[in-house]
Every structure is written in C-alpha cells, then in structure tokens.
C-alpha cells in the first residue's frame, strides 16, 4: 500500500506544471472562501453581539410576567444581593441588572415620551462595553450623579446636546409623580434602533429613585465564561435567584434571534457550496485529463498486475495529495486575506455612509471579519472532499482500462 502512495505522490510531481496550476486554482478557491466566510462571520457576529451580548446575555433573569406585561412592578427584588450571588458562581463571567421605565422627557424646547434604562456602569461596562458606542461626550460615571445619556435620535428630536439639562416626569411605582433633573453627559448610538431613536440611559440608582423601586431591577443579564451548555448554567443560577424568578437562556428568551443566527450558518454553507461547485469542475477537468494522458502508462501498470482497486486508490491518492498541497497554499493566501479583512475591514461606506439597518439592528458601514476554526478548516476539508469526489469518475475509468487496448493507444 505504501508503495502505491509513494507512486501516487511521484505521479503528481512528474507533471509539475500541471499539478501546480491546478493546485493554484484550488488554492485561490480556498483563500476566497476563507475570507468570504470571515467577512460574513464578522457581519453576523456583530449583529449577534449587539443582540445577545448587549441585550439578551447568555442567560436572562426576570420576573415571569415581565416580558409579557412590561409592568414596572413586575420586578426582581433584592437586586444587589442577587447580583452578588450570581457573580459568586463559578461559571459566571459577570452579571448586570437593568431597570426600565417610561417618562416624559423634556428639554427647554420640546418634550416627548422616552424609554429609560437604568444600569450600573461598574457592572455593565466590563460585559457589554456600551461606552464604546458613545458618539459625543462620555458615558455615565460609575457613581449616581443625575447624569443621562441620550440616544442620538432622541437628542435630535429634543434638540439637546451634551451639557444640556433634561427634565424627566413619570408616574412612579407607588403612584406618586416622579420628577427630576438630569445632565446630558453623552450621546450614544448602540445599534439598537429603538433605543437610539427614543431612549436614554441613566445610573441604576438614579432611576430606582425616580421610579420608587428601591433595590429592584427588571432584568439581569448574565454572561458565562463559555457559551456552551447554557442549560446547565441556567440550572445553577436558578439556585441563587429569588423564589419565583424566571431564568432563561438567550434562545429561550428570544427565539427569533436564534432563527436569525441560523441564517448565518446557512449563508456560510451556501457560499462554500458555490465556490466549491465551481472549483470541482476544475479538478474534474484536470483529473480526467491526467488519466487520459497516461492511458498507455496505466495500461502497462494494469498489464503487469495492478489490480483495479489499487488503480482507483492510486488516482484518489493523487488527488488527495493535490488537494492537500493546494490547501496548504490556500491556507497561506487565505490567512493573509483574513488578516486584511479582520484588521482593515471591508468598507461599505461608499454606499451607505451611516451604516445600515437590518431587522432592528444598526450596523456600522465598516465591517470587520471574524476568523473561526470553521472558516479556517472547513474550506480545506471541503476541498479535499470535493477533489476526491471529482476524481472518482476518472479513477473508475482508469480501473476499467483494458491493458492491451490501453498500450496500443497513441
């Protein structure tokens, strides 16, 4: 067997030029696939990040009625103690609590209804880095100081800028009328279209005060150290949260997001399929040619006793080696392209300078790629698979050669 393999390898090098050309074609296909997948992964990864990391978390905790009713009073009590307990578990990377409210928000010229979200910068920023989404001014300070960050759309509607003051007027949980003054310290563009157009953020303690919901939050977002087996993590957390609170993984909390992410795998596979369908024809072409070219030689081999199965495996090994070679070259090229896509990014701002919006998520116009093991190795594996498949027919033909006729061939 090993002789056969050695022969296969040497066969390849006997036609150096031809082998190299085919290998280059396949390498280009691999490199292109790698970078395209890196690009799509980057784009979907960003969308995923915005939806899951920033809003849903790996695991979400809330009052069971809250998602349906969104009533202020359906809150999680003893928020501080609960957060500490969660942070104490082994798998938790971090947890952050959020409080939601609705208020009439006004500047000196106009007022309008706005969604308010209260959070603790100290817990929130290490997990979601929302301070990176500030476009003007700065994010909230870690201690409550009656500061507020407005969504860019909201700031525009109310004609407010950094440094201005804003009045909030709302009905608090105990029925009294909450009202207070806040200073705009920054404007933010988070990618969540609804909040950017009509939302504002303040310190958790400030909002708890305004709404008269002391030590309460509406949702706790937990990020795990790793994203696998979140159901097990969920069960751990169930043990540390107050009675009656609901704990859900992100796909339970938002099935639509899970579906959207399903599209991502679909898109990558689709691309892989297309590129390799094309490349496989090149391989088929070459392999066919190489078999026909060597008809006489193969006939001789058969005449001296090479069995059909050995013939087949010889041809298949040739293509495996070819694919491996191509894969190696492709990996190098692809790796370089990947570096380009990941660090320089793909600039689409020519078409839409403000970025664009898909399914409620706003993406920047410059998309950075993301490299995963899948994007590195799937194209190569696909290549080997495709090459072998494409060689089956030529190999079969080779096996079926009649020695005498073959030798007689010109």
């Amino acid at each position, binding site marked *: 067997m090993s002789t056969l393999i050695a022969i296969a390898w040497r066969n390849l090098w006997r036609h150096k030029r031809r082998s190299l050309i085919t290998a280059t074609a396949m390498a280009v296909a691999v490199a292109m696939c790698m970078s395209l997948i890196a690009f799509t992964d980057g784009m979907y990864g960003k969308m995923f990040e915005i939806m899951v990391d920033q809003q849903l978390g790996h695991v979400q905790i809330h009052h069971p009625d809250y998602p349906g009713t969104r009533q202020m009073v359906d809150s999680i009590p003893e928020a501080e103690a609960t957060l500490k307990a969660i942070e104490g578990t082994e798998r938790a990377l971090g947890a952050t609590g959020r409080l939601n409210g609705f208020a009439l928000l006004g500047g000196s010229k106009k*007022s309008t209804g706005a969604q308010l979200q209260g959070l603790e910068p100290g817990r929130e920023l290490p997990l979601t880095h929302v301070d990176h989404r500030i476009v003007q001014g700065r994010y909230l300070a870690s201690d409550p100081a009656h500061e507020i960050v407005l969504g860019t759309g909201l700031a525009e509607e109310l004609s407010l800028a950094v440094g201005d003051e804003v009045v909030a007027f709302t009905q608090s949980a105990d029925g*009294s*009328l909450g009202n207070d003054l806040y200073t705009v310290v920054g404007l933010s563009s988070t990618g969540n279209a609804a909040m950017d157009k009509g939302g504002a953020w303040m310190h958790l303690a400030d909002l708890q005060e305004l709404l008269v919901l002391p030590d309460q939050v509406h949702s706790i977002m937990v990020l795990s150290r790793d994203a696998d087996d979140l159901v097990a993590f969920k069960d751990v957390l169930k043990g540390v949260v107050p009675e009656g609170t609901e704990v859900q993984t992100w796909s339970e909390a938002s099935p639509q997001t899970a579906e959207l992410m399903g599209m991502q795998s679909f898109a990558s596979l689709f691309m892989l399929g297309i590129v390799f369908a094309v490349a496989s024809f090149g391989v088929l072409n070459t392999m066919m040619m190489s078999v026909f070219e060597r008809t006489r030689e193969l006939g001789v081999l058969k005449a001296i006793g090479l069995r059909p199965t050995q013939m087949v495996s010889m041809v298949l090994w040739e293509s495996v080696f070819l694919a491996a070679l191509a894969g190696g070259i492709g990996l190098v090229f692809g790796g370089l392209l990947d570096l380009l896509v990941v660090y320089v990014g793909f600039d689409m701002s020519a078409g839409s300078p403000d970025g664009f919006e898909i399914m409620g998520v706003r993406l920047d116009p410059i998309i950075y790629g993301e490299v995963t093991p899948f994007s590195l190795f799937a194209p190569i594996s696909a290549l080997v698979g495709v090459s072998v498949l494409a060689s089956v027919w030529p190999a079969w033909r080779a096996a079926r050669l009649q020695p005498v006729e073959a030798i007689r061939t010109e």
Partner: protein
Amino acid sequence: MRTLSLLWLFLGTPALAEDAEQAAKPTVEELLDATDDIQRGESSTAVMSMAVKTDRYERSMKMRALSKGEEKSLIVILEPAKDAGIATLKVDDNLWNYMPKVDRTMKVPAGMMSGSWMGSHFSNDDLVRNSRLRDDFTYEVTEEPAADGTGQWVIELVPKPDAAVVWGKVKVTIRPDKIPTSIEYFDEKGALVRTLSFGDIQEVGERKVPMTMSVVPGDKPEEYTRITYDELSFDVDHDDKTFSLQSLKK
C-alpha cells in the same frame, strides 16, 4: 362625554336645583345639559382630596383647584409632601405640568395624553375631550321619577354614527332634582368599562353640588379613584394671569 370636565364641572353646577322644585317636568335636554355642565363663565376655587386604589398601590392626595370659564384651570398638589407643588395647567386644549423640585414646566404632547393623570384612573385626555351628551348622542329615557318625586331618571345614550366617541353606550342616572348620581360607560360589545358615581350632595352658594365623585373601572371593580371636596367656593375673581406658565413658577 367630557368625563374629567366633570371635575371642572364640580366647580360650578348651574343653578337649576332651585328651579327644579317649582318648574314643570324638565326636558331631557335640560337634564343632559345639567349633566354636561356648561361653565358659562363660572370661576371657582376648591380644595379636593383624591384617593386612588389600584391593585398595586393606594394613595391619597390633596389638591387646590382654580378654574376660570371652561378653558382655563390650574390644579396644584398640596399633599403628600413628596409631590407638593406639582401643578397641571390647562389652557384651552393644551396641558402643561409644573414640577417645583426642578422648577421646570413640560408640555404634555398629544401622544402622551393617554397617560394617567396624577396616578389616578383619569387620563390626561379626560381633561380635554370634547363631546357633549346632547349633541353627540341620541337618547332614550328608560325610567322616570314618580309623580310624588321619588325614583330617578335613567337615560340611555347611544353615540351618533359620526360622533368622535369610543363608547358604545352611556347610561346616566339622575335624581329628580336634576343632580346626576351615576354615569356608566359601555363599549360597543356591551361590557361596562367604567362607572362614574356622584354622592354627598350639598348646597354651596346657591347651588347643589355633589361633593364626592368616584371612578371605578369595569374590569377591576376593587380599584377606584375618589375625589372629595374639602372646600369649595364659586364666583371667585381670578386674574387671567394666574393661568399662565410664568405664574406657575412662583
């Protein structure tokens, strides 16, 4: 039906009560007008208490209310201390809120009108809604007081096809002396959505005025908003300037 205008309504029921004893049986139109209450340039000052009970909280408030005509009014919260000084100013159909803690006023935009007023079962748009029983409804009298003056009027009203009214039916119960005792609001499917009741009729100045009004939602009968007059006087001469944004910031 200007429901919360009944609030303003309190601040001046027309002087029909006196005539009632001597006059012939009043026409339905007069009854409806009495219920609607046209201010006709009344002005008044009052101090009211409002108690609100919902399934989430119970609250009491005390407020001072000033009104001039139908279009201008000012309500200032006196108690509890946390909300003291918060005011609502209404001029025509515009509403503003004033907050003393931050010393700012904010206009209530049309889109926010659905918000509850001061945490009660009334909403901001109750203050400015604009339909009249007589004009926007067709009516049927289903009950009348007996000749000896006992019993009551019951009038069932159905909105006219083009009237800008969400109700399917309104049922008004009125005492023989033309003071309404209750108004029930039904949606088009016949479900009772809310009930307004009036009680504790007393004489103030020359008029008979219900000193208590409550609103009970149809689907949650254990909840209510109850308004009671602690003090009430009519024909007070208010300066127009009182009903302005500037004067709020006093």
